[in-house]
């Protein structure tokens, strides 16, 4: 095969590889009639919402209480003499 045949074949393949340009077009507007939609199945959720009542958590301050009188014992002994 001479050089000219090869050149010719290459040019012919390149001509076949070019495809036509595709243009996609999306739907600009679509209407759903929700009232017309129907879901088939069994309703298992409760019909109404309920919240269980509970008391508000209160944080009580740790108020002062005398645990012991140990410092008084030491003080009394130290003030004896």
């Amino acid at each position, binding site marked *: 095969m001479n050089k000219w045949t090869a050149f010719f074949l290459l040019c012919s393949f390149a001509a076949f590889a070019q495809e036509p340009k595709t243009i996609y077009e999306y739907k600009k507007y679509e209407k759903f009639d929700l009232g017309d939609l129907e879901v088939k199945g069994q309703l298992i959720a409760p019909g109404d919402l309920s919240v269980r009542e509970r008391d508000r958590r209160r944080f009580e*301050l740790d*108020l002062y*209480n005398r645990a*012991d009188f*140990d410092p008084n014992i030491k003080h009394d*002994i130290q*003030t*004896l*003499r």
Partner: protein
Amino acid sequence: MKFLFILLLALPVWAQEINWKDKPDAAQLAEAGFIYAALDAQVRHLAKQKDQESADLELLEELVLKTNVEALEDYDRGVLSKMHVASVHFLLGREAWKEKKAKDAQKWLVNVPRWHRYYPEARLLLADMAADAGAEGEREAFEDQCFEAAGKRAEEVNSPLLKRYYTVLAEDCITIRARKLYKAAKYTEAIEAYAKINKRAYKWPYLLLEKAWAFYNVQDYNRSLGLLVTYKSPLLDSYFEPEAEVLTALSYFRLCLYDDSLVVIDQFYNNYKPRTEALEGMLNAHKNSQTHFFELMQLSPEQRRQLHPFIGQLAAQIGQRPRFALDQASLVKVKAESDRLAQVLQTLPSNHRARGWMKDSVAHLGAVKENLVGRINYHAKKDMFEFISDVYALSEELFKVKLEIISRKKDLVYGSKKLISDRGRGSFKQVKSSRFEQFWKFHGAFWADELGDFSFGLANNCSTVKKEAPRE
């Protein structure tokens, strides 16, 4: 004047008894009435001896009993520990107790024999350590020994100072029991133990507060308030306890008498804030002084009354303690001895051989005197600083009560509730009493025999009711 006359007459007698040319020994000094100088001479003498003779140790014991054990506080403990004398053992045991070295303290204190002056106090220290170690049986035994011995000595001694010391000591021995029961949360037993302390006891006014805490913890808030109101009596005017105000506010709070509690809290701030600031100003101005608080303690009750109320009342409280009385008595004795020795020194010719040791002795007595002044000054200052620190700590606690009251009042508003009575007042029905107690109405007068037996009759106000919606 009479005393001075006797003193002047006695001067030549000392001069005859002491060989002034040589340094006299402790026995000679003691015989001449120089007990502090004698004690110093005897300690120095014994420190040099390898084998201490029993006669020397007996003399040391005798001198310590005359001067009080505090006179030995400045000597080296290593030197003292070689002197096997009960007073010295007591001193070493007490020092170890102060440093919280219980084993060392016990080792020395158990050596103090039953007949000894310091035996009851040694037993009190042992009881305290036994309580800390959780040895209940031992604690009770030591307390009993202390109470019995101190009570017996209080009856035997003639000196008012010693009588007071032993009486207060005996009170301390029975108080420790009530306090340890309180600590163990045995409040009912603690109340019974406090009830055994006589109303005439020196400590009784201070113990009212402790007893009130015990009632508070058994939820008898009315009795707690009743005990605390005793401090309002004119008889207990000088006993002011800021903690009593806190407990009053807390008792009202537990009864849900929030407004009453708030009144007490406001009174606390109005009363204590300006006074504490004044006291703090005075303390800070003199905190480095070595004599200011000592001088304050020397003022007469009339002079103290002219001072700021807190300062005068605190000085009065400190002055009632046995330690102050003992230190003050020791100071008078040391000062008298120092003056006498200085007087003898003045009569000696300038080249006399005795001048050397006498000058040393006068200097030593000066140091003892200075030490006692410093001791009185330090303890008075320390007590006053502690008081201020307590007031600030308690003020913080009261602030918490105030916050809690505000929070509870807010809850009532949000919950559309109100307390069952806006202001519940008392009735006899609310007073808990034993069959041995009778009740009389309070008509604004504090009768001495009724002090400490008051009770409020307030109804608990903690139940809530739904608040009615306002009518349109």
